[in-house]
């Protein structure tokens, strides 16, 4: 099973400590390496100076042995250098001198060709007993004889110091980590507390207290942004719920109206005797209300299915104008009854890709409305054109339906598309509407990626517009 910390705070602290520890270890390693490198180069430097000093102190005794002036040992600055190991050889490899500190051990063995010829040759070797030394070789002439001088210091002290340094730092590491962990935990807590508070506040917001909002302390930081986003969500949710509440109360109201009619007509009809004709009338009147109820329920079901995304559009590509002709032909008889003229004009080349039934219904509802509200003998104008949009990808067709009916007041232009909304309650009820035609039209157009609305026009003009994406050529 994978190890996993439950809380964000713990996770943040954990990773903080891990990263901090890794950085510290890298830092310690780097520091130790730098120190080692610095000390080594310092040591080589000291050795070079020492070689130069020693060269001046070497001399050949009259019997041909190589010796070194003893006063050198008294040199006060060279106390450290008492540990120096020194060997002098002929370039051929014959050992001429080994100092006491070497205690007979070889210092580097046989010389290789060219050793020490060009300046000071540095290397690190191990003596026979395992002591690691830093060795420097240099060719120097004494009395005209070239001599290979080798001088070395043990690195023991250096290593010892380095190890001490490392141990000290490594001992401090856990302490540093504990301190860092504690600080990190506090810090994470401080950052997360507002989040926790937000969660608690959000928890208190229930469907009955949806108007509550999360307080925003600083709208510009991440948490403030989060709070704003949550508040936006709450707002939309509240609106949706409000709409749904209004819708259910509207539905029950709307269902009650025809039911009330049925009941009254039936009850009153039974109060006294009627002729067969009279009863037929009573029953017929009740059935008319039943038809209205049925229609309303069917429409509501369609809408709830649309809301739930359960309606699949049967899309085909067809000329927009054909659909307009079809619908104008259908609704034409209604216009003729009022001696109105339906005039179709515009671009016949515009094709749509969509569900003909739903789009047709949307346009039919709009046109039916236009016929209903326009005065007798007037003209209803349908204009189809392509409108220019910024995007090159998408082309938009606009259909305007203009009639000479009374203009819809500005404040109602959005609301006429709401379910059950009627501008004039009594009037459209007589016309047999249930107040759902425009909201169905709106849904159908929106489902095709279009929009529907009312245009600003004169007092005695009412213009609906409908914009839909033009079908892309195959």
């Amino acid at each position: 099973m994978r190890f996993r910390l439950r809380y964000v705070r713990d996770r943040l602290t954990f990773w903080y400590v891990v990263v901090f520890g890794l950085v510290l270890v890298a830092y310690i390693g780097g520091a130790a390496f730098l120190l080692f490198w610095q000390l080594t180069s310092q040591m080589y430097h000291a050795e070079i100076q020492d070689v130069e000093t020693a060269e001046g102190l070497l001399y050949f005794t009259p019997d041909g042995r190589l010796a070194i002036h003893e006063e050198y040992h008294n040199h006060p600055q060279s106390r450290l250098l008492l540990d120096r190991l020194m060997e002098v050889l002929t370039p051929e490899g014959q050992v001429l001198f080994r100092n006491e500190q070497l205690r007979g051990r070889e210092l580097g063995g046989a010389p290789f060709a060219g050793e020490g010829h060009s300046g000071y040759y540095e290397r690190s070797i191990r003596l026979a007993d395992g002591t690691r030394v830093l060795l420097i070789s240099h060719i120097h002439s004494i009395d005209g004889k070239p001599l290979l001088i080798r001088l070395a210091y043990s690195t023991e002290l250096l290593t010892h110091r380095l190890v001490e340094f490392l141990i000290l730092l490594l001992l401090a590491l856990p302490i540093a980590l504990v301190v860092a962990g504690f600080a990190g935990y506090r810090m994470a807590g401080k950052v997360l507390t507002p989040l926790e508070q937000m969660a608690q506040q959000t928890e208190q917001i229930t469907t009955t207290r949806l108007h509550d909002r999360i307080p925003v302390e600083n709208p510009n930081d991440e948490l403030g942004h989060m709070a704003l986003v949550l508040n936006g969500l709450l707002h939309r949710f509240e609106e949706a719920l409000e709409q749904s509440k209004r819708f259910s109360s509207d539905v029950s109201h709307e269902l009650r109206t025809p039911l009330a009619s049925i009941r009254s007509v039936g009850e009153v009809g039974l109060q006294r005797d009627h002729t067969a004709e009279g009863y037929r009338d009573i029953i017929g009147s009740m059935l008319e209300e039943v038809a209205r109820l049925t229609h309303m329920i069917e429409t509501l079901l369609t809408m709830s299915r649309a809301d739930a995304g359960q309606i699949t559009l049967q899309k085909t590509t067809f000329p927009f104008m054909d659909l307009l002709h079809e619908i104008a032909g259908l609704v034409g008889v209604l216009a003729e009854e009022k001696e109105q003229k339906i005039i179709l004009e515009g671009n016949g080349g515009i094709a749509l890709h969509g569900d003909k039934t739903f789009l047709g219904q949307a346009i039919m509802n709009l046109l039916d409305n236009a016929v209903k509200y326009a005065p007798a003998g007037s003209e209803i104008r349908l204009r189809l054109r392509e409108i220019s949009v910024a995007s090159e990808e998408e082309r938009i067709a606009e259909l305007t339906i203009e009639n000479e009916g009374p203009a819809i007041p500005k404040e109602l232009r959005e609301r006429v598309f709401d379910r059950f909304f009627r501008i004039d309650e009594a009037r459209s009820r007589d016309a047999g509407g249930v107040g759902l035609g425009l909201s169905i039209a709106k849904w159908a157009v929106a489902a095709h990626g279009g929009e529907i609305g009312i245009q600003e026009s004169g007092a005695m003009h009412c213009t609906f517009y409908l914009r839909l994406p033009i079908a892309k050529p195959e």
Partner: protein
Amino acid sequence: MNILLIEDEHKLAAAVSEGLAAHHHTTAVAYTGEAGLKLLRNGRFDLILLDVMLPRQSGLETLRELRRDGFHLPVLILTSRDSIEDRVLGLDAGADDYLVKPFAFPELLARVRALSRRGAPISASHLELADLKIDLNGRTAHRAGKTLDLTGREFDLLEYLLVNRGTVVSREMLARSVWKESSRSTALENVIDVQIARLRRKIDDPFPIKLLHTVRGVGFVLREEE
């Protein structure tokens, strides 16, 4: 025709069987699927009207069972759910047609008639009622020897009414059969009313005997009043 009606709603069952009796069908009613199957095994029926929402054994189960038992008679499903899935389920279970509640009675009659004459379509070139005659091939209509000047839509409407003469047709039936629109809308119903009014003006107004009648709250019928 002998019709078996399986429907648990007593009021609806009584109304439907009375309505069918008025159109010369005999109806046996069962209130559960089990009772329906028992009746079916003991009698001879030409058609079943089957409610989907039945207590205990559901309508679809009943349907599957009777199909499994080898009954091939047409079945018309009555359902209060009309989502496409529900229709597909019903047709898959072996139904021949479905009708969504609340249905108009003329609609039910029309479906019953359609199912009973399935496989034997009526092909006439002339239809007539009293002194009204139409020629389906020439698409002309005459009344009392006078030619009626009808538009295409008016002719289709008259033809449909004549085919169903004597029975009431609802607006939904007209919308579907004459206007080929599957969805109901107020606009279309207004259109239908206007078209009926115009047709009446042409075929009835000039003549003393009226043939096209409105049955308030139900629909329209073409018939000779006694």
